[in-house]
């Protein structure tokens, strides 16, 4: 059992408010990912949970107990740092057993626990080496091992994979996901990489400038972003965010004027949208298609063949290029004039303030929401 609850948690350095009131409930055994652009306060928030930074205001509870003033080691957490932060003068075994040694655990018991953790992470042959004699991936595994040995209630990860090369990152990502299910532990994971967030999380917390923008499952965030920021941040290739004008709002949805003058009706609740006001149409590249009778006209500017799929960038005269995800066998040519059609029931509309209009019908997001439980 390990739940973490944050209530109006704030952090300031002098006059600067870094974390501006965060409310969050993390369930037992949940894998929660904090994601957001660099400098948005992810690390600060994680370090406040860890006890490495003081909490300026608000309440942090672990397992229902307020721990604002409890020192880091007494919170029952373990943290894995981006820089690994191994003790360079100790062997791998001593690195992993350091916390137990400080806690006065007898050597035999300590060795057994270190061995167990080393077996889980395939570190057994490296136990007598020093960190300097290990590769980056091995060091990262030792850092994770050091966390496992303590059998913490909650694991905290601060961008643990960002110093690894791409191939290793994918491998470690899978390994951490595997650990999460085999250890049945609560994990909080910080990353600026939305792909890591999408692939690993039970729930994603999107942060911007010290505020939560949205909390939800990866698919919730993907299909129903709460605002323009989340829409643009989650998903790769990025969602198309097209500036449009509201023509009329009715019971069935909102009719918008697209670049070039064409119109489209998007089925969202739009009672407060005034005719003539500006809005943003959000549509994923896979929901745009090249088709002769589409409402938007444009010219193909760039074509990226990725093998299994093709990304086509279309200049529609105003606003940013629109990205179209087409099949791997797409015959799109640079310079060709094309028309684009939209899957309107998969599209999002954001009002002048960037907030999403609620869709008329919300599709069930399959069983995927309950992943891992």
């Amino acid at each position, binding site marked *: 059992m390990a739940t973490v609850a944050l209530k109006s948690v704030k952090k300031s350095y002098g006059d600067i408010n870094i974390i501006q009131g965060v409310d969050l409930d993390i369930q037992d055994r949940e894998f929660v990912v904090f994601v957001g652009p660099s400098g948005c306060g992810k690390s600060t928030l994680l370090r406040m949970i860890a006890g*490495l930074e003081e909490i300026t205001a608000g309440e942090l509870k672990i397992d229902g107990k307020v721990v604002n003033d409890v020192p*880091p080691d007494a919170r029952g957490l373990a943290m894995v740092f981006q820089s690994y*932060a191994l*003790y360079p003068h100790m062997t791998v075994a001593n690195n992993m057993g350091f*916390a137990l040694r400080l806690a006065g655990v007898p050597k035999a018991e300590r060795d057994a626990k270190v061995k167990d953790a080393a077996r889980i992470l395939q570190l057994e042959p490296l136990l007598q080496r020093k960190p300097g004699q290990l590769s980056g991936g091995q060091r990262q595994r030792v850092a994770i091992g*050091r966390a496992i040995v303590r059998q913490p209630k909650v694991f905290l990860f601060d961008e643990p994979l960002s110093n690894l090369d791409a191939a290793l990152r994918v491998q470690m990502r899978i390994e951490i996901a595997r650990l999460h299910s085999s250890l049945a532990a609560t994990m909080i994971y910080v990353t600026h990489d939305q792909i890591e967030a999408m692939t690993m999380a039970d729930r994603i917390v999107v942060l911007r400038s010290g505020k939560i923008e949205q909390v939800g499952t990866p698919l919730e965030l993907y299909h129903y972003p709460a605002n323009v920021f989340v829409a643009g941040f989650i998903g790769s290739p990025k969602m198309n965010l097209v500036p449009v004008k509201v023509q009329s709002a009715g019971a069935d949805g909102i009719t918008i004027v697209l670049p070039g003058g064409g119109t489209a009706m998007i089925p969202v609740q739009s009672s407060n949208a005034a005719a003539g006001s500006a809005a943003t149409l959000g549509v994923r590249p896979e929901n745009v298609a090249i088709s002769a009778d589409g409402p938007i006209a444009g010219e193909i500017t760039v074509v990226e063949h990725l093998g299994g799929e093709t990304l086509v960038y279309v200049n529609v005269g105003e606003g940013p290029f629109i990205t179209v995800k087409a099949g791997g066998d797409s015959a799109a040519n640079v310079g060709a004039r094309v028309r684009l059609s939209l899957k309107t029931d998969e599209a999002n509309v954001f009002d002048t303030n960037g907030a999403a209009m609620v869709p008329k019908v919300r599709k069930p997001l399959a069983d995927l929401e309950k992943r891992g439980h």
Partner: protein
Amino acid sequence: MASKAQKKIGLAVLGWVVALLVFFPLIWMALAAFKTEIDAVSSPPKVIFDPTLENFNAVFERVNYGNAVFNSIVESVGATLICLIFAAPAAYAMAFFPGRKTKDLLMWMLSTKMMPAVGVLVPMYLIFRSTGMLDTRTGLVIVYTLMNLPIVVWMLYSFFREVPKEILEAARMDGARPRQQLLLLLLPLSLPGVMSTALLSIIICWNEAFWSINLTASNAAPLTQLIASFSSPEGLFWAKLSAASLLAIAPILVFGWVTQRQLVRGLTFGAVK
């Protein structure tokens, strides 16, 4: 344009010239120590002479060399150890938990070294007299500790700053209290730096003359005081003075020679790491 080889030769020549300039007085003193008093002051100076050990005999007869060596060791090593005990926690706090005033504090500590010692000689002397610390080892150790504390804190501070702060944070998560962080992580991790700090502090104490001459006479007198006692009122005896000086600097010269690699390694620690 000078070629690479020419530059190298130029640098080598320059190096030798500087080294000879620095070493000349030492060599001169070493030679004088083995001359008779008459040879030592003869003009033009004699380079070839009959070496004699009579100066050394005279020194050993007149003063307790062994006691002075003992005092020098006890006072310099003692002061250095006490310095480290006080400086390490201070440097730890300043390096890892700096406050708004930490930089000012460091500057202020260093600025105390700019003050001429003679400025506080009279109050120091009076304090020492009334507390009965004149000519005691304890007294001199206290003075040396206070004298070196700023430098030792500064050096430890800069060595500690080389240690990534995440390592200490990981240790905090692992349950290490400040004392354990200091003893189990910081000191071992910056050992070369700590060693060279200690060596430098020992050397500074060993060479210190102002306080030892003014605050000690015989009991607690280290080697520097012993040399000074040879510039006696009966007139200068160059050869004996040289012999005494040679005896005084010999131990630290050997010490410096033996530890020079450690010293250089520590002082360039970080730059090459």
